[in-house]
């Protein structure tokens, strides 16, 4: 009995969520008195995982899996879990892993909890805390199957070093043509330098910016912070910014370390989408804006005056730090 994680990588490098998942898995493994095995797909050098507590890596190298195909990847994870006799299978909450995880759960006949936000509340019975009601509440979920599948919400646990001695093993799961019923025709990456999914910091703006022509200053601030840009729902509805940047209950959820909201009043649906972010900064000319009620830090004032100044000051601060 071990714990299996699917360690997601892109272009041969592990995603940060994979390192968070490894850190989390190590802690769960300690409480269950077991070890952590990771399965990787075309990941190249896997030694980095040993820093975060992974004991064994099943390395899958297969050109057929060069592009992400949910069914085939789910099949790989299922076979890895069966080979290891894994009782707990852990995935991240990236778009790809969300796509995979319910397929994995059905394949393993496992109870599944998604959006998990912390270590198990109890291991017998097995109970975990997860986000529910669009981050307006938590739900303690009990999983009563022999094998359990969990998907960990991003930034909900953190990345912790916990060195282990790593064993590597080549793994060749059986992948049939039936796994490739869905074919990728083309991929189009967004124009932003950092995607919301990968970002630790998100700079988001709303109708207070008055028009799409004013987003330059938002992008500049984001660039200084190494942040992704995002927007409120009315802004994407008006076509000022792409839908992929819409943050909120019916848009993208954001669980970053820092969320900066500029000219966004803070509708309940928007707040629900960003509630899992650790630190929230609100800049708004209206002191009555509801967003101030959930913010950690706030500035009441004109964004058009504040943002360029803040960008310049942050630039100087970053240069001083480096």
């Amino acid at each position, binding site marked *: 009995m071990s714990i299996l994680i699917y360690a997601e990588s892109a272009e041969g490098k592990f995603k940060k969520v994979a390192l968070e998942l490894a850190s989390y898995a190590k802690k769960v493994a300690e409480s269950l008195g077991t070890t952590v095995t990771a399965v990787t797909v075309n990941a190249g050098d896997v030694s980095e995982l040993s820093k975060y507590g992974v004991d064994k890596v099943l390395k899958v190298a297969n050109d057929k899996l060069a592009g*992400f195909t949910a069914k085939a990847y789910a099949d790989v994870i299922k076979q890895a879990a069966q080979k290891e006799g894994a009782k707990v299978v852990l995935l991240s909450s990236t*778009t*790809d892993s*969300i796509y*995979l995880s*319910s*397929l994995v*759960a*059905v394949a393993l006949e*496992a*109870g*599944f*909890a*998604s*959006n998990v936000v912390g270590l198990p509340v109890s291991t017998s019975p097995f*109970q975990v*805390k997860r986000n*529910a*009601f*669009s981050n307006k*509440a*938590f*739900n*303690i*979920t009990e999983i*009563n*199957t022999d094998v359990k599948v969990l998907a960990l919400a991003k930034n909900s646990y953190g990345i912790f070093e916990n060195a282990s001695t790593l064993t590597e093993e080549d793994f060749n799961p059986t992948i049939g043509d039936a796994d490739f*019923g*869905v074919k*990728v*025709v*083309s991929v*189009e990456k967004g124009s932003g330098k950092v*995607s919301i999914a*990968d970002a630790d*910091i998100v700079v988001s703006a709303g109708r207070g910016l008055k028009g799409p022509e004013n987003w330059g200053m938002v992008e500049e601030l984001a660039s200084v912070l190494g942040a992704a840009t995002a927007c409120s729902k009315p802004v994407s*509805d008006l076509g000022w910014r792409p*839908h*992929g940047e819409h943050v909120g*209950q*019916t*848009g993208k959820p954001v669980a970053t370390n*820092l969320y900066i909201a500029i000219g966004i009043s803070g509708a*309940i649906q928007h707040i*629900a989408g960003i*509630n899992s972010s*650790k*630190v929230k900064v*609100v800049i708004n000319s209206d002191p009555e804006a509801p967003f*101030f009620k959930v*913010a950690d*830090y*706030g500035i*009441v*004032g004109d964004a058009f*005056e504040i943002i360029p100044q*803040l960008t310049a*000051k*942050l630039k100087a*601060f970053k240069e001083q730090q480096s």
Partner: protein
Amino acid sequence: MKILVCISHVPDTTSKINFINGDSEFDTNGVQYVINPNDEFGLTRAIWFQEQQGATVTVVNVGGPDTEPTLRKALAIGANEAIRINANPTDGFFVAKQLAEVIKNGGYDIVIAGKESLDYNGGMVPGMIAGILGYNFLNSCTNITVEGTNVTAVREIDGGKETVSTTLPVIIGGQKGIVEEKDLRIPNMRGIMTARTKALTILEPVDASVNTKAVKFEKPAPKSAVKLVSADNLDELINLLHNEAKVI
């Protein structure tokens, strides 16, 4: 072409979330229920297929009699018929198993379910249906077109989008973009009147395991008041973010 749209009956997005009975149950008092927004986008797309390509649209929900107004709304929007599976939707796998049974028996070509519901946010049902039936599955879809048995779709990926192709039958996890919000249908009086005469079939659930159980709910801890920084003192904000919050 036969389309099935899976409908979740969820609290309106502006609802206050509270719990009762020792925090073991959601407090429905004063809560307005709606079609899950991700499902509503899918329903509108299905109606588009009905109008443009002659598809028939069935809506289905797993829930008690209290969910019927939500199904009637879907009928008023334009669905041809509705099915209610008479069970409490407590677990994702249980719900997926019920829906899979309806799909298997109904011979649907396209099944659209929202990529997640706004109550439990599990995001698991569309994938589980696909897993149970072995159908092709496309999650986070923002567009779908069908020609003959060929399906082309656009799906959101982290940091962009991709175009994919597959064949019918297919399970779609839909979201905003599959239609735009401005294109969502509001039931008109004729639709409401017609909906009353459309078939709403009630089916009893099939046996399925319940793999998970919601045992308790919690609300986030109350937040301390915002620290306001003067617009003339942006250095102070940088100081707080660096030294106090440690996020830059």
